[in-house]
């Protein structure tokens, strides 16, 4: 049985050690400068054409009246009024709520799973694989799967609720219910993924430190607080950046589960609506620029906060 185990990956291609001097390029290679540029050309072309140009276009579009069909014309900062639109503000508030709840719940569950299967008796690898398995299913497929679970009479979720609560629950029928249901689905889908990230971090902690903590008579909680958590900081930072970014940009799950109804539109659903329902690509671009700037700031702040004194 192949098991999900970061410990087994050969260290040969895991140079997490400080980057080796990259300037030890021998004279022999210097002659191949042009050839190297040829190798790098496909990469440069795709990055330039499909990334740099659209990025510039996004900024340009945001200062233009740009209908889905028809000619565009510069209109200053008019598009940025979309940021004051109550629909956008509501979407922003809902997205932030969703991000906070998801990051906390997902983080705690993933951390629990990682501690559970980090080391264990025989068969632990099988459990790792099972916990990860939902992460192999696409997010859209997972959302459709839960759409079926929430909405069919024969679903075990509904059967259980009839037994426990004595009636049907409208899992997606209100903003609050949809938020909780979606967080549940997302936790199922992503817990194993973040578990794997955390396990990589846990594995990097020198066992000698645990040995020392035990000799000093430290209990479980003290070891956790004084050894595990501080040393896991970079990994936790990575997990938080991934989770916060992913949640702030949530689209698939709400678009599929609620269609953004009952006040569950996220900011990306708002961009989608501006672009393809209101057919105003300029306003959509303006909101996109704002999201981009916001995310760069938030991620920078998170990384700085978590890297400080470490």
């Amino acid at each position, binding site marked *: 049985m192949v*098991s*999900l*185990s*970061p410990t*087994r*990956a050969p260290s*040969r291609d*895991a140079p*997490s050690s400080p980057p080796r001097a990259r300037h030890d390029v021998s004279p*022999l*290679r210097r002659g*191949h*400068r042009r*050839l*190297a*540029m040829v190798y*790098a050309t496909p*990469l*440069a072309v*795709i*990055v330039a054409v*499909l*990334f740099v*140009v*659209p*990025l510039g*276009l*996004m900024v340009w579009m945001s200062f233009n009246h*740009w209908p889905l069909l028809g000619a565009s014309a510069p209109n200053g900062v008019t598009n940025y009024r979309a940021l004051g639109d109550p629909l956008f503000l509501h979407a922003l508030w809902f997205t932030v709520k969703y991000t906070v709840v998801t990051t906390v719940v997902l983080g705690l569950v993933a951390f629990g799973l990682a501690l*559970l*299967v980090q080391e264990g*008796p025989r*068969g632990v690898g099988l459990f790792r*694989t*099972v916990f990860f398995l*939902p992460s192999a*299913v*696409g*997010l*859209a*497929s997972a959302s*459709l*799967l839960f*759409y*079926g679970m929430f*909405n*069919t009479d*024969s*679903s075990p979720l509904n059967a259980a609720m009839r037994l426990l609560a004595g009636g049907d629950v409208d899992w997606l029928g209100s903003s609050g219910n949809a938020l909780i249901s979606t967080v549940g689905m997302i936790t*199922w889908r992503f*817990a194993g993924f973040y578990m794997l990230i955390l396990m990589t971090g846990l594995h990097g902690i020198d066992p000698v430190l645990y040995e020392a903590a035990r000799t000093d008579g430290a209990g479980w909680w003290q070891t956790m607080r004084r050894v595990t958590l501080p040393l896991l900081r970079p990994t936790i930072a*990575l997990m938080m950046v991934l989770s916060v*970014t992913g949640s702030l940009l949530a*689209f*698939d799950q709400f678009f599929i589960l609620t269609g953004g109804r009952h006040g569950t539109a996220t900011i990306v659903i708002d961009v989608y609506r501006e*672009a393809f329902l209101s057919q105003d690509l300029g306003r959509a671009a303006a909101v*996109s620029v704002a*999201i*981009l700037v916001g*995310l760069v700031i938030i991620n920078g702040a998170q990384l700085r906060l978590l890297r400080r004194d470490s």
Partner: protein
Amino acid sequence: MSRPRHRAARSAGFYSTSTVLAVLFLFPMVWTLFSSVHGRQASGRGNGWGIDDYKRLFHYGSGLPAYLLNTTVVALITVCVTVVVTTLGGYAVARFDFPGKNVLFLVTLAILMVPYATILVPLYVFLGWIGLQNSLIGLGLVLAMFQLPFGLFMMRNSFEALPVELEEAALIDGCTPTGVLRRVLLRGVAPGMVTVALFAFLAAWNEFVAPLIFLTDGAKFTLPVALFNLEAGNFGSVDFGALQSGVVTAAVPCVAVFLLLQRYYVRGFTSGALKG
């Protein structure tokens, strides 16, 4: 005396906790698989087993074969482009010095910083200009672009992990860098290429927003978008049986590929490429 008993209690605790959790994690998938082949809709009779759900899915819209073909084409383009581009680029960045190398590396990594969803609107316009809107090729190229940061980082690390002496010898023997890459290095970085291909495949096969925006012709839809239409197309009357069989159809290749290539997947985490 107390030590073994303590250990036994601990492992009993481990097994019971893990088993309960494992059931929770497997349950949604197992139930969906079960209800896609069992029940009134699936059997076409009162109850029992049957494949009627899959038959209706087969004939939905442009037909399941068309959607599967579209998804496969997009996934193939994404995987091939990503692997070829990042292998060549990784080799260049890891082993050679050339003008603009650092800028190229940093701009490629900057793709990670730019939230995926925000760049889709200008990409939609831009693909229209170059005639790749509503095109599976355009979609595959865009999805490959989003895989470049991870792929480049992964491949650069793979090349750097190989001993330099190997190629130096071949170069002195008069082998060209291309020959060295083909005959000597490819074997060494093959595991890295599998990891990059695996991540690209899972991302492309499951992608939802990009095809939703870029593809306008129903016959070109990928499976996730077709299934979404099956769910949202006719309000009030969702064919849940067909939907569940669709979810199973979409998930099976991913789960199978993942189970086969798990160790390559984990390599993507341990290589530090995610921290890029």
